[in-house]
């Protein structure tokens, strides 16, 4: 069968992927640089195509709570935003994690803090991987580095969300969201019927029938000992995710003396910088974490046994570098290089940063 190829923006690819996945609902609110997601949905009118519900909410807060409502009915529900709007979603995400609901959320990151800038950034790493909202919880975080991955991660994300009853975040940035690339489009899947939803999600609030007890979706337990028990249960779930769901790409690491560690847009830049360095004879590799939670700590710890050092490239003042340091655990030097505020580093300046790092500067 011939492949279906399309030239798409990353933001459009997300929306098309959701429709083709057979998602049930999207709730959004406009913010640059991700407004194309909801615009594409509205243009496509998925209620006609597949029966998928799309709604422009009154705020990011309302949108994430709408996701809560739909997800609690067993639906494949999603929302998207960019950094300032994503901060507003943290309340809802905490409740969704606390109620153990599956959902997919997209953050097309722009520079902060505050209103910051509308230019791309990777400065929401801490918020994305360490919880973000109140309470002890984790999101599963996927970091796409291409428009194709924006498309592919929708299916992977929803599947993980339902497998673990946990919110999944696609952590993108203004470049991946806005740039156009060729995308291979998958076939249209049929949305689940209500009977299939009930079978897959017996816990969902689909109406209390005579053959079962009532279903209650809540994150509240006023008995401290029971809440502690629940917290322990979450920890167990996160440990299973750490054990089973790490995704990571290692490029040219086998003979590398030094490695870059970078995700998303930064990893694309590092690919070019690595080529330039290799042409000059430097044995440089790249570790690209695809899941930021769970983090590929074991892979990095393994490399720390034989490479000479790690340089993280991030469009932030240094956030992921802390996870690399934890994994390396003092065995090798770890340094960070990044540009911030919406500035994107050039491959050449990354080459210089690596040369300085190799010299021990």
């Amino acid at each position, binding site marked *: 069968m011939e492949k279906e190829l399309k030239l798409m923006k990353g933001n459009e690819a997300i929306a098309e992927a959701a429709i083709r996945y057979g998602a049930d*609902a999207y709730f959004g609110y406009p913010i640059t640089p991700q407004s194309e997601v909801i615009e594409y949905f509205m243009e496509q009118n998925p209620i006609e195509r597949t029966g998928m*519900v799309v*709604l422009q909410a009154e705020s990011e807060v309302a949108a994430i709570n*709408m996701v809560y*409502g*739909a997800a*609690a009915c067993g639906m494949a529900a999603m929302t998207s935003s960019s950094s300032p709007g994503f901060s507003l979603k943290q309340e809802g995400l905490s409740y969704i994690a606390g109620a153990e609901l599956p959902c997919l959320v997209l953050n097309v990151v722009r520079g902060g803090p505050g209103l910051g800038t509308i230019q791309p950034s990777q400065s929401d790493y801490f918020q994305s991987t360490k919880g973000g909202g109140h309470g002890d919880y984790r999101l599963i975080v996927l970091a796409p580095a291409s428009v194709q991955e924006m498309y592919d991660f929708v299916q992977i994300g929803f599947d993980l969300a339902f497998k673990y009853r946990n919110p999944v975040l696609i952590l993108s940035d203004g470049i991946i969201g806005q740039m156009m690339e060729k995308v291979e489009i998958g076939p249209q899947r049929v949305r689940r019927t209500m009977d299939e939803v009930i079978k897959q999600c017996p816990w969902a609030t689909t*109406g*209390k029938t005579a053959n079962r007890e009532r279903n*209650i979706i809540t994150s509240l337990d006023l008995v401290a000992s029971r809440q502690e028990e629940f917290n322990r249960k979450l920890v167990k779930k996160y440990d299973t995710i750490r054990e089973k769901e790490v995704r990571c790409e290692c490029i040219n690491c086998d003979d590398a003396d030094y490695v870059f560690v970078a995700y998303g847009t930064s990893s694309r830049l590092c690919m070019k910088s690595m080529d330039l360095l290799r042409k000059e004879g430097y044995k440089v590799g790249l570790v690209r974490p695809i899941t930021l939670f769970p983090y590929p700590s074991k892979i990095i710890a393994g490399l720390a046994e034989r490479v000479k050092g790690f340089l993280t490239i991030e469009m932030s003042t240094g956030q992921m570098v802390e996870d690399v340091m934890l994994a390396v655990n003092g065995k090798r030097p770890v340094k960070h290089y990044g540009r911030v505020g919406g500035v994107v580093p050039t491959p050449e300046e990354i080459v210089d940063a690596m040369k300085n790092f190799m010299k021990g500067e």
Partner: protein
Amino acid sequence: MAELTINDIIKEENLVYKKTKVMTDNVMHYCPGCGHGTTHRLVAEVIEELGIQDKTIGVTPVGCSVLMYNYLDIDMQEAAHGRAPAIATAIKRVMPDKFVFTYQGDGDLAAIGTAETIHSCNRGENITIIFVNNGIYGMTGGQMAPTTLSGMKAVTCPRGRDVNTMGYPLHITELIAQLPNVRFVTRQSVHTPANVRKAKAAIRRAFENQKDGKGGLSFVEIVSNCNSNWKMTAVDANKWMEENTFKEYPLGDIKIDWEIQEGKISLRNRKLDY
């Protein structure tokens, strides 16, 4: 004549009242005298009478009624503070054949959740909102609510609500009635048997509005008491409510089938009305 035994009395034709099966047997946590218990029962009775127990999804708020899901034998979701109408919006959109309602207090609905309330009403979501207004934050210990009466004392306005610095009692119900997609707006109470019957009829109508295909949002305000935080006996609280709260929030239907009822909404004048 043979002596009557208990079994002669327990007969279908002698039945005047029974607990609806839509209520669970869990002991309620509400203070004696509180209106929540009665209002819960009315919602449960309406669900039973309409035969929609298997088709109803409720959304509970943050506040005293946060644990409502312990008392109703239906599927329920617990919302973040103020967000119940957003959640109910999504439930109704993804399952349009279900009956969806929120149950919210004044702080939840008219303070932190104002945006969610106004916009779900403005979209005319085909849901029912039960709004219990007792003019105070009960669960957190008696703080001022947006609906607290002028001059009324609360722990965050211990010298009484000063309308010049704290705002006037918010008439969110009249605000909502003016939105074209809102179908039914009424204000009731549950402090006397007669009022209980009226309130039940209103709640029934608000649920029935979800099944005739005409759409629109239905909004039932229950003006209620909080004798614990008002620091009164239950009887005194109801008397105080009749003498004071009903003056600020008069009972009755405000909008029926998209028609605002005559004389029910008037612009408030700062000098004349307060």
